[in-house]
């Protein structure tokens, strides 16, 4: 199934119509989710209106982890089967993941200032999220620093796999160091601790962020594949 879609030519035909569809879904979900989250949903009885930041913060945090996990899987595929499309996928996903991580850090900081009374605190979750952001930057920098593209792909894949160690540390940081950031409240033993009226906008926004990622990933990947084709045809012309 996966190997069927892993053919670059087939990917190009498929993504030609799949990427606008995902971007369209993202547009619709943002159009529904943003007013729902920012105006229609109830304010929190303790946090007041600032709870609305969560609808941006939490989906960005989820998908910045999810994207890194996906890059890890793509890196493994790239190293084991040496598949070119996996390289392109991992490389194209990285800037999106880094942006989501940055959104998560900035919105968390904006939320922390009125709620915790501090813009930044070196607690386990905040620090490990910052570490994830730096790992993203290092990964992108390594890709750009190595000239030979195939070699860059596999070196970056090794780095990406080593960086996977950070994912469980982020996930469990709130349980290991119970300092400031609240522990998980949606996926937990004994059911969710969040009121149902807040689940609707939260999952809508999570869906919107995911569709945005999927759409942008395909756009990025298509651009990278086109660039490769242009370069290889230029080399062929120079040789001829």
């Amino acid at each position, binding site marked *: 199934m996966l190997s069927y879609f892993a053919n670059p030519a087939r990917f190009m035909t498929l993504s030609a119509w799949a990427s606008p569809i995902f971007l369209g879904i993202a547009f619709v979900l943002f159009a529904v989710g943003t007013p729902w989250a920012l105006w229609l949903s109830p304010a929190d009885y303790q946090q007041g209106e600032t709870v609305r930041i969560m609808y941006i913060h939490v989906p960005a945090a989820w998908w910045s982890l999810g994207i890194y996990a996906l890059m890890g899987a793509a890196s493994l595929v790239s190293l084991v089967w040496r598949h070119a499309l996996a390289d392109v996928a991992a490389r194209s996903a990285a800037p999106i993941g880094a942006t989501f991580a940055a959104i998560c850090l900035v919105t968390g900081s904006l939320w922390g200032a009125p709620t915790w009374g501090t813009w930044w605190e070196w607690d386990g979750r905040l620090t490990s999220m910052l570490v994830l952001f730096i790992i993203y930057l290092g990964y992108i920098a390594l890709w750009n620093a190595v000239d030979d593209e195939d*070699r860059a792909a596999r070196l970056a894949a090794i780095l990406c796999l080593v960086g996977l160690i950070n994912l469980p540390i982020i996930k469990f940081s709130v349980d290991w160091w119970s300092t400031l950031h609240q522990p998980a409240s949606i996926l937990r033993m004994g059911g969710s601790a969040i009121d149902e009226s807040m689940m609707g906008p939260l999952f809508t926004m999570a869906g919107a962020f995911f569709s945005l990622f999927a759409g942008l990933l395909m756009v990025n990947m298509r651009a990278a594949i086109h660039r490769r084709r242009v370069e290889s045809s230029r080399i062929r012309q120079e040789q001829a």
Partner: protein
Amino acid sequence: MWASGGLMTPLGYFVGAATLTPLAMGPDRALLATAGPPLVWIAAALAVMATLERLFQADLEDGSLDQMMLSEAPLEALVLAKGAAFWCVVGAPLALAGAPVSIALQAPIDRIPLIVAALGVGAAAFIGVGLVGAAVTAGVRRGGVLIALIVLPFFAPPVIFGAAIASGEDVEAAFLILLGCALGATAIGPFAAAAALRLQAE
């Protein structure tokens, strides 16, 4: 390794950074006694970072790496040996220099042996991670900043727990976690670094 300034470069960084710290903070003894000892770890992390760039680059340039790959010994073992040698010429001197440096930064005298031991263990963790950073950037010209960016996230845990030991908080747990970091880095580092070096030599 000797060509790049050898033993003196990391020690110079370490002692230099540790000397500038109290000058920047002012001579307040109470402030220095709380903030000083953890800063030993910043100096140590910077010192190791500064030496990583040439670790495999020189081998790649002069063909030593090809000889290492032709050897019957597995590349992973050779990389591990190189890491161990690096620990002997950089890690161990840093740990020993940590004694006078911590005294100068107002750490209590009875905590000095513990700080030196922790620096030795922490240096092993730094080097295990550093092998990977040095290997993936071996082919990059002026890769120093890139290495710093790549290894920085992985230097964070040893610095956190090493600094906790230096300031005397929850020492036993912190030391065990630091040992765990060093063992993990030593176990994974040589394999990831060897995989990267094979690509560099292709």
